[in-house]
Structures are given as C-alpha cells and as structure tokens.
C-alpha cells in the first residue's frame, strides 16, 4: 500500500500533456514494431486488439505473452516517457495555461484525437469499438441529464435513439442515395457529408419532440409511475417502427451512407460534452438538481419547474437522437430490435455504473461497460454474469456510481504541474 502510494506520487507532477505524449509513444511503438517484432517474439498470433483480453480468454496459454506485450508496449513506455518528458511538457503546459482555456483545450483534444486515430487505425475492429464507445458516451451523458441531473427514472432512451436513427437515416437515404424504397437521390451525393449534420439534428429534434410524450406526464408523476410510462413509450416506438413497412418494418433498414467516420463522431462527442457541461453548470441547468431535490422549494424560489422538466427531457432526448443517427450511419443497418430492452439495460448499466450527476462519470461508465463488454466476449454467456456482478458491487460500495456529483474542471485538468511542486 505504502509503495503503491509512493509510486503514484512519483507521477503527480506529470501534466495531461505528458500522459498524451506517453500514449503517443506507446502507439508509435505498436505501430512500427508491434507486429513485426514484439508480438512475433512473444509468440502472439497478431497484435492484441484490446490489450490482449480476447487472446487471454480464448487461449489461456497466451496469458504471459499478452501481459508482456501490454507491459512492453503500453505500461512501461507511457510511464517512462511521461516521467522523463516532464521538464518539457510542464513548460509547454505553462505556456498553454496563459492562452485562453478553449485554445488550450482544443490543442489537447486535437493531439489526443491524433493519437487515438493512430491507435485505432491498427485494425478495423478497433475503429468500430472506438466509434461505438464514443456514441455510448453521448448516450450515457444524455440519459444522465434525465436520470441523474433531473432525477427521474426514464426508460425511454432506446426509443429516443430509434427516432433519431430512423429520421436521420430516412433523410440521408432520401436525399443522397439511390435507394430502392426512396428512389433516386434528390441531391448530389457529394453534398451528403456536408449536410449530414442537418440530418442528424433533424433526428435529434424529432426525438426531443417525441420526448414530450414522456415529459408531460412527468409533471404529475414521478418515480415508478414515470418509469412505467417511459417504458411504454419505448415499446410504442419499437412496435410503431415494426409495423411501418415503408421503412422496412421488422426487417430493418440498411444502406446508410458512411457519413460517420471517426473524426466526425469524435467532434460530435466533444460537442455533446461541451454543451451538456455548459448547461449543467449554469444556474439554468442546476435548476434540474433543484427540482429533483425538492420541487416545492424550487417553485417557491421562482424556478419554473415545468419548463425545467421539459427542458431536461427534450435536451436529453435530443442527444439520444444524435447518438442514434450516428449509430445508424456507423453500422449502415438498423432494425427495431436494436432499440429494445437490451439496449435499455446497456444504457442504464453505463449510467449507473459510471455515476449519476456527473459527465466525467458518464464517460467512465460508457468506456468501461463498452470495453468490458468487448473484452469479455469470448466468455460468451459468462459475460452476462460478470458484468451484472460488477454492477452489483458498484451499487453496494458506491450507491451513486463510480464518480458521481463531480464536474469536469478543464482548467485544473490541463494545468502545468510544475508550479505546484515549487510552491509546496
């Protein structure tokens, strides 16, 4: 315990930039030597995709090799480079600190994206996992607005997602693709990627209009009753889509153009984090918390509780719709079965695991559940024992989730760690 603490303390003066550079180095090592040398000499069949989890679970004999690979490629280079580069990174971080926060944040994010792109680019499977994880982050943050900040127990999120997915798919298929149901493209397909955001936003707006069906009953009921109403909403959407043969019915709808490459999804995710963060840290957004904690007191303190509830639902649903639209264009195929109770369980697991009332918690929850879900795939059925077990443990020891009631402090996150050392 003592040594662990000392070990962690050694790295307390590494700024965010240092970790990014460490990660960058690790990715470079993997990129240039990963396949030809490291995995070859360790006897691994190929580069481990998700830190070797899949290989380890499939063939236990490979466990030492996979662990060695992780150490050689990730752990050691990241720690080493991060620590060695502090004299340089701290200075750069100090310079960036003097620039406006948004500029510093954009530089960090751009660098992070570059590294992530390189890491994911090793194979297509990784790209897909990263894409789906980013979409899950949007979903989790959006449900956190309703279930965490607003404190309602809403189960209609897959429904909102479905509305967004279908509306944006219909728009892109109708306008930019020669499709057998919607006929020839109305506009030139070159315009597609540029007008795709409008299709997405249309999907989001449609989802937020749909959410009014749940928001308006929420003026009168809370808790269990609202959960039932919202669950009903989800099934209404699902069966409505199943019975609409124009959009494929239960067979689903395919052929969406590939307008959602990794950078686009990354930008949407960052946009979502930024907007939701702005909202929930403003007084207007904190009214959500006030209404959750004591509705009568909020009314007496001039808070418009109805407007606040409607805002929470419509805002959350909007982002769920965006996530649905991106999801449809990543998989290029959707069917109503995707937006059912399984999806709901996954979304709820992510938000309650990560932490209520916290964006950073949602990010952690989305990443952990997604990566766990992928990494434990070889266990097949046991995966559905292990993940719920972890959830139960989290609920016992941290009832509000791993990281709850905490907001991102970008300034603190990105600052140089040099000064603090001198000051202490």
């Amino acid at each position, binding site marked *: 315990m003592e040594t662990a603490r000392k070990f962690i303390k050694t790295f307390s003066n590494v700024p965010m930039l240092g970790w990014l550079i460490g990660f960058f180095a690790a990715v470079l090592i993997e990129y240039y030597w990963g396949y030809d040398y490291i995995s070859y000499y360790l006897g691994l069949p190929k580069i481990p995709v998700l830190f070797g989890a899949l290989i380890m679970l499939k063939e236990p004999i490979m466990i030492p090799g996979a662990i060695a690979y992780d150490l050689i490629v990730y752990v050691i280079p990241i720690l080493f480079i991060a620590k060695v580069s502090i004299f340089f990174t701290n200075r750069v971080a100090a310079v960036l600190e003097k620039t406006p926060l948004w500029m510093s944040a954009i530089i960090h994010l751009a660098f992070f994206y570059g590294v992530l792109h390189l890491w994911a680019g090793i194979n297509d499977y990784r790209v897909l996992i990263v894409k789906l994880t980013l979409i899950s982050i949007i979903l989790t943050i959006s449900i956190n607005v309703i279930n965490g900040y607003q404190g309602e127990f809403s189960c209609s999120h897959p429904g909102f997602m479905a509305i967004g997915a279908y509306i944006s798919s219909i728009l892109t298929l109708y306008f930019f693709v020669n499709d057998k149901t919607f006929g020839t493209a109305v506009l030139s397909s070159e315009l597609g990627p540029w007008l795709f955001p409008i299709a997405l936003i249309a999907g989001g707006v449609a989802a937020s209009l749909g959410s009014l069906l749940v928001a308006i009953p929420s003026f009168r009921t809370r808790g269990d009753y609202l959960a039932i109403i919202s669950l009903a909403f989800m099934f209404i959407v699902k069966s409505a889509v199943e019975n609409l043969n124009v959009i494929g019915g239960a067979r689903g709808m395919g052929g969406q153009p590939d307008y959602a490459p990794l950078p686009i999804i990354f930008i949407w995710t960052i946009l979502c984090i930024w*907007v939701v963060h702005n909202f929930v840290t403003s*007084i207007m957004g904190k009214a959500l918390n006030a209404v959750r904690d004591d509705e009568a007191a909020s009314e007496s303190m001039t808070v*418009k509780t109805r407007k606040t509830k409607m805002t929470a639902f419509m805002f959350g649903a909007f982002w769920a719709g965006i996530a649905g639209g991106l999801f449809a264009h990543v998989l290029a195929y959707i069917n109503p079965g995707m937006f059912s109770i399984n999806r709901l369980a996954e979304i709820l697991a992510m938000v309650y695991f990560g932490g209520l009332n916290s964006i950073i918690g949602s990010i952690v929850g989305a990443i952990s559940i997604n990566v766990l879900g992928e990494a434990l795939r070889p266990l097949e059925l046991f995966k559905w024992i292990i993940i719920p077990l972890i959830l139960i443990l989290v609920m016992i020891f941290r009832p509000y989730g791993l990281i709850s009631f905490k907001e991102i402090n970008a300034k603190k996150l990105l600052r140089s760690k040099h000064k603090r050392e001198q000051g202490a």
Partner: protein
Amino acid sequence: MPALLNVNKMTHYFGGLRAVYNYNLNIKPHQITGLIGPNGAGKTTIFNLITGVYTPTQGSITLENENIKGLETNEIAAKGLGRTFQNLALWRHMNVLDHIKMAHYSQLSYGLIGSFFNTTKCRQQETQIEENSYRLLELFDIKQHADQIVTNLPYGAQRRVEMARAMATNPKILFLDEPTAGMTPDELGQMIKIIRQVHQDFNVAIFLIEHRMKFVMELCQYIQTLVFGELIAEGPPEVIQNNPEVIEAYLGKEDLT
C-alpha cells in the same frame, strides 16, 4: 398607507373539510405581522394559499393591487413573495452558494441557448449573480460554508441558508413558516437578531407563523390568531396577549364551577 398584500374573504375547502374560512389579511409595507394559533388551525395552509401552492376556493388575493390568485407558485414568488418552510426544504445535493444562486432564477435572461453555448451574456449574468450571492452569504454569516453541501451544516446554519435563499428572490414580503422550530434558546436570540436585521436592511414586510409567544410578542407589530381556520382575534401584541378568547384557545377554558 396603501396595503402591500391584501387578502379578502379567502375560504378554502379540502374536499368537504373547511380548512380556512373568511380569512382577511392586510400587510402594509415594512410591517411585521404574526400568525398564531394551535396545531392544525390552518396556518401553513394560509401560507400555501397565498403563495399559490393551492388556489383558494373563494376570495381574492392582491399584491400591490394586482391579482395574484390562480397564478403559478413560481410566478407569485417572482412577483415578490419569498418564503421559508416549516421543515427545512433545502436541496440536499447542492452546496450553499448554489442555493443562493438558484434563487436568482427569475432574474436570468440569457435563455436556454445562452446556457448551452456559454455565451458572453450568460457568463456576465452568472458572475454578477455570484457576486450578489456572496454578499448575501456574508450578511447571513454563512460565507465560510459557501462550498459545503448543505446537509453537512449545523441546523442553525441551515436555517440561515434558507433565509438567505428566500432573500435572494428579492421579495417584497417575506413569509417565514416557524423560523425557530427546533432551535435552542440561544439560537432563538440569534434568529430574532437576524430577522430584525433583514427587516431593516432589505426593507421588507414580514409575515410569520410562530408558536413561541416570546418571539412573536417581541417581533411583531400586528398579530392574528387563527383557530380552526377562522380568525378569532387580531390586533397589536398587547391586545392579543390579554384577549380572553386567545387565552382560551391556547390554554383551554377555565372551569369556574
């Protein structure tokens, strides 16, 4: 002097139960009015009726000659009726500063879009509200607790937070529902001081429900006594103190035979 708040012949039924009957109230600017009465007399109901939690079955309520009956609670609050609650109604996951900031809600004009994109207008208003909130915190002597979650505060401080929060809505009349409930005699003295200070600094009228006679007699300029939803006596403290009906309602009838 024209009345600030005027309640005329207000009657309210909960189903078949007559909770308030023919209630009249006239609050002048800068006046401290007390409402006393035994348990279940309908005092808190009267608060809820005036502040818009319930809409009275009959009667009229006007604030500065403007009808406020039938408006939403938040609209009435924004027009200048601040209140505290009998059992503290604080937001349990929020820190003290946010409580005070939240009560400025009706003064926000940046709109939802402003808050989504953190516009300059939004930032300016929020900074201004934050400064104002700190001033209030200082006045109520809770500035040192600003960053703490409100449930971690001692009881007396929580009461002060509630009061500061009510004052942040910029009220013309402050409704206090048993401000000293559950307080020690020590805290009681403090509370009297705070109420006096608020009364003076903010130039508000105060309407309070209280059980402790000492407190009411010391603070109020005008007292109403309510029994079973009906006023049985009203007047300055000296008059109420010696009114036989009030004594009867509180202490029971003296059996002379």
